[in-house]
């Protein structure tokens, strides 16, 4: 793990030095107009092609507002957007292409290019709300073929700000990325990706993720801020034969009307060797961190060290499902989560933000953190250390109740094929942590605090083989003598 990180850091330093020696070209020299009106796609494309052919360099956008549709970044070219300059997405859906290899639309594409980047303190603003709604009109007129599922165009028919596929040595620094019509930025099967000091404001339309890293190898995301309608920092695995691996996320902050940091949902190949440090998640509707192994892929060797989750609906959700596994067996194991402080609110944490998360899976009281495998696909070897989770309590048995009888516990559905969300099981029988179909779960120095009384125990284990509780404490008003750990069909449970 440490070696991997050292190699990553050396690679990233090499990346930065490469980019410092590049020659600068002013985009206005190629005829670009920064008037906020003229569509510069063809001019930008020609400039990139020219710089690429001339051996590389930076295409510099000086202050001004440069409207554009789709264009392709090429090897050895960095887009440098100066403070005061904006790359403004055209609101005309026809100005964007769907790349035939990638199958998505984007403003900035790069496919099979090396040593590329985007830098500068300027802004990339997709104006996705308008573009997406313009697309809706064209679909309704019958001019574009889309089923309008959920009354929105498919994600692949709305432009992202950035989509890089199969690129090596990619640097994204300092920029502000705003308002895409779909996901914001996707790096798909890239090697050596550095994302440093970016600011993401992405809540202008459905599926506005912050960053999607798909099947990449060698990734550092640091010092960045994500305020997003959909998942803030999202790792995916689209390809059953690929994997997302060797990733560092450090010193990032996320706000989301979905999940703060997420593995999945698409998880065909899997995720391994991740180190996530000093992560802050706030005002987030779903989970601070979701681990979803639901499509046959693996999740393993993950360390989360330093998580502050404030006003966030759920702390942790670890899940094995069996959605699109197509013969593979999903796995989720060897995860350490430590140094966590989390506050779960009673009220809706993302109230007031654009594209608030949908109120669903009711009736349920406040959901616990959960580790939920399947009877024959078990989550293994999870360590939770130095953690304090603060819950509101206040559950109402007249509204929703799942007690501790076998009948009630067995009635909790497996939901093997369902889309994974912390809330999917509706009411769960614990207020702090619910664990099912899991082996070797270790708690060290963990505090569960309920601010008001809850009818449920803090921890419920159902079909758990091997668990240890060392230095685990509970705090709940008027609950002296309450048994806060409940075991059901479980064995090898060691409580100290």
């Amino acid at each position, binding site marked *: 793990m440490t070696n991997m990180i050292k190699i990553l850091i050396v690679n990233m330093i090499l990346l930065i030095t490469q980019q410092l020696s590049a020659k600068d070209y002013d985009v206005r*020299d*190629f*005829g670009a107009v920064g008037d906020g*009106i*003229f*569509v510069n796609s*063809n*001019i930008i*494309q*020609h*400039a990139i092609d*020219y710089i690429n052919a001339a051996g590389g360099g930076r295409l510099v956008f000086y202050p001004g507002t440069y409207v554009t*549709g789709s264009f392709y970044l090429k090897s050895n070219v960095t887009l440098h957007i100066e403070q005061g300059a904006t790359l403004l997405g055209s609101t*005309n*859906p*026809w*100005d964007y292409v769907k790349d035939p290899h990638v199958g998505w639309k984007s403003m900035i594409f790069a496919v099979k290019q090396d040593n590329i980047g985007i830098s500068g303190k300027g802004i990339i603003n997709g104006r996705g709300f308008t573009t997406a709604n*313009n697309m809706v009109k*064209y679909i309704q*007129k019958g*001019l574009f073929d889309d089923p309008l599922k959920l009354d929105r165009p498919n994600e692949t028919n709305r432009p992202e700000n950035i989509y890089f596929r199969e690129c090596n040595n990619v640097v994204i620094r300092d920029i502000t990325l705003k308002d895409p019509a779909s996901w914001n930025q996707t790096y798909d099967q890239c090697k050596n990706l550095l994302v440093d000091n970016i600011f993401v404001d992405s809540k202008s339309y459905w599926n506005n993720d912050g960053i999607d890293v798909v099947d990449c190898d060698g990734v550092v995301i640091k010092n960045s801020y994500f305020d997003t309608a959909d998942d803030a920092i999202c790792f995916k695995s689209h390809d059953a034969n690929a994997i997302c691996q060797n990733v560092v996320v450090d010193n990032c902050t996320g706000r989301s009307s979905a999940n703060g940091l997420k593995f999945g949902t698409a998880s065909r190949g899997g995720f391994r060797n991740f180190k996530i440090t000093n992560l802050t998640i706030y005002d987030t509707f779903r989970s601070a961190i979701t681990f979803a192994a639901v499509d046959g892929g693996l999740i393993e060797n993950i360390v989360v060290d330093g998580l502050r989750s404030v006003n966030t609906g759920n702390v942790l959700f670890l899940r094995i499902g069996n959605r699109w596994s197509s013969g593979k067996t999903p796995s989720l194991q060897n995860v350490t989560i430590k140094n966590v402080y989390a506050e779960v609110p009673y009220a809706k944490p993302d109230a007031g933000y654009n594209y608030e998360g949908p109120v669903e899976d009711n009736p349920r009281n406040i959901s616990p953190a959960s580790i939920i495998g399947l009877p024959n696909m078990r989550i293994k070897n999870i360590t939770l250390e130095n953690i304090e989770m603060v819950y509101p309590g206040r559950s109402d048995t007249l509204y929703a109740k799942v007690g501790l009888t076998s009948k009630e516990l067995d009635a909790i559905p497996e939901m093997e094929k369902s889309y994974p969300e912390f809330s999917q099981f509706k009411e769960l029988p614990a207020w702090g942590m619910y664990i099912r179909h899991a082996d070797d779960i270790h708690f060290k120095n963990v505090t569960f605090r309920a601010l008001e009384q809850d009818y449920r125990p803090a921890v419920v284990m159902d079909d758990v083989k091997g668990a240890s509780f060392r230095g685990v404490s509970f705090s709940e008003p008027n609950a002296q003598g309450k048994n806060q750990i409940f075991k059901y069909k479980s064995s090898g449970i060691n409580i100290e």
Partner: protein
Amino acid sequence: MKKFFFSFFVAICALNLSAQTDYKASVFGCMSDGITLNTQSIQTAINIISSRGGGMLHFYVGRYLTGTIFLKNNVTIVLHEGATLVGVPSAYDYAGLPGVPKGLIVAHGQSNIGVVGSTPEYQTNMDVIGNGIIEGQGKSVRKSIETQIAKGYLNETIEQASPALISFSECTGVKVTGLMLREAAGDVVTYNDCKNVETAGLLIESKDIAGSNGLVFSKCTGLNVTNNFFNVSGKPIKSSANSKEVKSSDNRTFAGSLSKITK
């Protein structure tokens, strides 16, 4: 000659039969404000209309800024009175196709295509010219091209980079009628290896750039050039010797009537 007129008549009938569906440009998001770059909106319109079997794409009064658009099978662009297609003054917004010179409106290997003004009377009234306009902004386009070449960013000759207003190659059943064609950065109308082409009722005015020829054609079969007025810096009509079944009449310049071309 009779045989030619008959085949021409058949071609015109075919044009009218298949081009009956009408589409307004605004349906596809085209903006008449003169500043919105409509290239991809117009192109999308053409693609959709062609894929649905063809029809007329109608532009009503306004200025429609655009770069190169590629005309496709069975699509006719109709420019109504006051409607102007305006060429964008940017070197990199023009394209050709392999073997086809750059143009504002380009077609290669397409059949039953047209760019027409809304006025049908040109066939009976000598004085009527088209209502719709294609404004090439040749001087500005040429300036952009020359600047980019001088900077070394554009690796083409001025001639290669300068778009015609209309550049059709290997097309069959072409109608360019009833329009005002203004100020091209290159030649105004060019046909290469096209069959059954009607070019009539055009006012062609292109003097800002030196050597802008009005109508340039080669290797064409069945070309009707009638009732056009030329005010150009180059030759009104420039043809290579290898075209067949060419009929020309009532074509004029300020200097007087052009002599008939008969081949």
